[in-house]
C-alpha cells in the first residue's frame, strides 16, 4: 500500500466546492481521505503556503506526433505539460496522418503510455482525413477512446457535414469542437484586421470571420441538439453570441487561450512571427469582452492551443511562418499573474476553468479531488516570482512570445495517479 500525505496546503477543488487548509491523503493512486494524520509509512509533502488542486487539464494541445516530430513529440509535449502543472491533455487530430482511425488513436495512447508523463486524451477527426467531405467513423473512434471530435487546424466547412456530425455524435454524447473561421474572409490573413493591420500593410483576419461561423454552428447545434464546443474564442462578438446561445439553452461551451487575454494585435508591430496565431491576437476591446466572458462564466475553459513549431519554421517571413505558439508551461503563470493577482478571477473560479470544466465538457473522470478520485494533483506555489526562459522549455520548440516575462506563481509539484511526476527545482 503506497501512502502519500500532502500536509497543510490550501486545498481547492471547485468540483467539490472545497476550499480550506487541510491534509490530503493519497493511497495507491487515489484520493483516500481529508484531514488525515501522518503515519510512519507515509511519504510526506509539506504544502504549507501552497495551493493543492486537482491536476490541471488542457483540453486543446497539439502534440504533432505522428508526422511532425521535428516540432514536438508526445514525450516532449507531455513533459512540457507536467512542467506547466497539467496532469491531462487532450490532443488535436491535425497530425500527419490525421487521427481519423482506431489505429491512429491507439498509437497516441501507446506513445503516451511509453512517455509515462501525464494522461493523454484524443480528440479525433470529424471527417475522414480532415478533408471535410465525409464523416469519419465516429463510433469506432469512440471505441478506441476518442473523447470528442474536431477537424481543428481548419473548420468543418460544409454546413451539411457539420449538421450530420452533430446528429451522429449525439449517439455517443460527444462534443464537436470547431475552429470557427470563414476562410473567404481570412484568405491570406496573418493578423487581426484593424487599425494595426492597416498601418502595417498586413492582410487582416476580421472578427466577423469567426463570428459568422459561430452563428452557423449555434444554429446547427440548436437544430440538432448537438454539443458544440467553440475552440479558442477571441472576439467580443463571439463571446456575446455564445452568451446569448447559452441563455437560450443551446448546448454550447467555449474556451480561451491565455494569449487572447494577455496580448493584442499591437504586439505584431514588431513583425515577430511569435505573435502570429489563429485566431489572431485581437484588439483591446476584444480582450475586455473576453475577460467579462471569463468572469460571468460564458467562457468556462482556459486552454493553451499549445502549437509548437521548430525554430526554422517560425524564423520566416511573416506570411510564410506558421500560426501558433507554445502554451503549456506559461498558461498557469499567466492565469495567476493576469487573472488572479489583479482580482479578475478568484482561485476557485480560475481553477474550475482548468480542472472540472474541461473534464465535464469532455466527459472524462478527472478534475476533482473527491474521495475515491484518481490522485492527479497539482501543487502550486502562488507567491514565487520567476522569469520565463523559453530556452529551458521541455517542449521541442521555442516559439513563445513570453520569453523574458516575469511571472507570479507556478506549479511546484505535479502528481499523476499518486506518483510525483514533476518537481520544480527553482
Amino acid at each position, binding site marked *: 500500500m503506497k501512502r502519500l500525505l500532502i500536509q497543510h496546503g490550501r486545498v481547492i477543488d471547485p468540483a467539490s466546492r472545497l476550499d480550506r487548509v487541510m491534509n490530503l491523503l493519497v493511497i495507491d493512486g487515489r484520493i483516500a481521505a481529508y484531514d488525515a494524520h501522518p503515519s510512519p509509512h507515509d511519504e510526506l509533502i509539506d504544502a504549507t503556503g501552497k495551493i493543492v488542486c486537482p491536476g490541471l487539464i488542457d483540453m486543446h494541445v497539439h502534440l504533432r506526433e505522428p508526422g511532425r516530430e521535428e516540432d514536438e513529440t508526445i514525450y516532449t509535449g507531455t513533459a512540457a505539460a507536467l512542467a506547466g502543472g497539467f496532469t491531462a491533455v487532450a490532443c488535436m487530430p491535425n497530425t500527419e496522418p490525421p487521427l481519423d482511425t482506431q489505429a491512429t488513436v491507439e498509437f497516441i495512447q501507446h506513445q503516451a503510455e511509453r512517455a509515462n508523463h501525464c494522461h493523454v486524451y484524443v480528440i479525433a477527426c470529424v471527417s475522414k482525413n480532415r478533408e471535410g467531405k465525409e464523416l469519419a467513423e465516429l463510433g469506432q473512434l469512440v471505441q478506441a477512446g476518442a473523447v470528442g471530435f474536431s477537424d481543428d487546424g481548419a473548420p468543418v466547412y460544409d454546413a451539411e457535414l457539420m449538421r450530420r456530425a452533430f446528429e451522429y455524435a449525439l449517439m455517443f454524447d460527444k462534443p464537436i469542437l470547431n475552429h470557427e473561421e470563414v476562410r473567404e474572409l481570412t484568405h491570406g490573413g496573418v493578423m487581426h484586421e484593424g*487599425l494595426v493591420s*492597416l*498601418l502595417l*500593410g498586413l492582410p487582416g483576419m476580421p472578427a466577423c470571420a469567426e463570428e459568422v461561423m459561430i452563428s452557423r454552428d449555434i444554429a446547427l447545434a440548436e437544430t440538432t441538439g448537438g454539443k458544440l464546443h467553440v475552440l479558442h474564442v477571441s472576439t467580443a462578438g463571439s463571446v456575446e453570441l455564445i452568451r446569448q446561445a447559452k441563455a437560450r439553452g443551446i448546448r454550447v461551451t467555449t474556451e480561451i487561450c491565455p494569449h487572447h487575454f494577455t496580448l493584442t494585435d499591437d504586439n505584431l508591430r514588431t*513583425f515577430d512571427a511569435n505573435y502570429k496565431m489563429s485566431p489572431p491576437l485581437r484588439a483591446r476591446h476584444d480582450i475586455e469582452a473576453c475577460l467579462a466572458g471569463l468572469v460571468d462564466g460564458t467562457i468556462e475553459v482556459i486552454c493553451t492551443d499549445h502549437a509548437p513549431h521548430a525554430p*526554422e519554421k517560425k524564423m*520566416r*517571413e*511573416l506570411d510564410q511562418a506558421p500560426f501558433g505558439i507554445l502554451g503549456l508551461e506559461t498558461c498557469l503563470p499567466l492565469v495567476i499573474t493576469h487573472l488572479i493577482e489583479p482580482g479578475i478571477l478568484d482561485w476557485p473560479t480560475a481553477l474550475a476553468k482548468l480542472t472540472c470544466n474541461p473534464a465535464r465538457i469532455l466527459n472524462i473522470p478527472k478534475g476533482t479531488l473527491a474521495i475515491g478520485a484518481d490522485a492527479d494533483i497539482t501543487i502550486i506555489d502562488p507567491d514565487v516570482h520567476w522569469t520565463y526562459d523559453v530556452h529551458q522549455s521541455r517542449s521541442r520548440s521555442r516559439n513563445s512570445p513570453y520569453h523574458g516575462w516575469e511571472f507570479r506563481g507556478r506549479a511546484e509539484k505535479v502528481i499523476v495517479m499518486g506518483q510525483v511526476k514533476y518537481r520544480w527545482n527553482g
Partner: protein
Amino acid sequence: MTAQFAHRHLLGIEGLSEHDITALLDLAEEAVEVSRQVEKKKTTLKGRTLINLFYENSTRTRTSFSLATRRLGGDTIDFTAVGSSVSKGESFIDTAKNIEAMGIDAVVVRHTTPGTPQLLAQHLGVSVINAGDGPHEHPTQGLLDILSIRERCGRIAGLTVALVGDIMYSRTARSNIWGLKKLGAHVILCGPSTLVSQQWQEIGVEVAHNLDEILPRCDVVNLLRIQFERQATRPFPSVREYALLYTMNGERLERAKNNILILAPGPINRGVEVTPEVADGPHSAILEQVNNGVAVRMAVLWQLLGQ
C-alpha cells in the same frame, strides 16, 4: 554633412522623428546639387559595398539605389530571388546571412512581405534599408515625394496633401502619411471605400471618397497606382468606373487651386490614375520625383554609412 541621425537602419518613416526627416531632406538637397555638377562622383562610400536584395521586381528603385551608391563612390551588387538559392529552398534569412558573410556593408531590401526589413535587421550586423516591404512602407519613396513637395511649395507644414487611389495596398501611402503628418501637413486619403478605410481617421488623417469635393482644398495631389498585383479580390467594379471617379484629368485640374502640385510615384497607368495632359503638364512634378529619388537615396546612404 553635420546633421545627426541616430539610426543604424532605415526601416520606415513611422520610426523617424520630424528632426530625422528634416535632416534627410536637407542632406538630399545637398545631394541634388551634387547631381547637377559635371563631376558627380564623391568618395564618401569609397571601399563600401551595398547589396540590392530584391525579392520583387523593380527597375527604377534598384537603379536609383545603385546610382546613388556609385555617386558616393561605393559599389553595388544586385541579388534577385529568381534563379538564386531561394529557388533551391534556402530561407530568406540564410540567404541574407550568406551574403553578409561575403563582407558587404549594407543591404537594400525589397520584398513582398511587410516586416522583412525588420527581420533582416534582427539577424544581420550591417545596415538595412527598406526599399519597399509589401504594402507596408517605402521610406525613400516617401522622402522623395516630400522633398519634391518642399522644393515646389517651399514648406510642408500647413499644406493640404491628398493621397488618391489605392491606399490599402500602397507602401508609398504609408510612408507619405507618416512623413507628411510629422512635418505638419493635413493629409487626406481619397479613394473607393474598399481601398480607403475609415479607420485611418484614428491616426488623425482625413478620409474622403469623393475627389471632386476635396480637390478645391488641396495644395498637392499624390496619385497612387492601383496595385492590381496585390489585390486578392477586385475592390471596385471596373477600371472604367475607377477612372470616372478618380482619374486626375484636365477638367478636374481646372477646378483645383491654380498652383496645385501633382505627384505620381511611378510607374503610372496613364488614363487610370492620371491623364497624359496632366502627367506631362506644368503642375506635374513626376520627373523631378525621379531625380529626387537618387538624391534622397544618396542622403540615406550618407547618413547610414558615411560616418
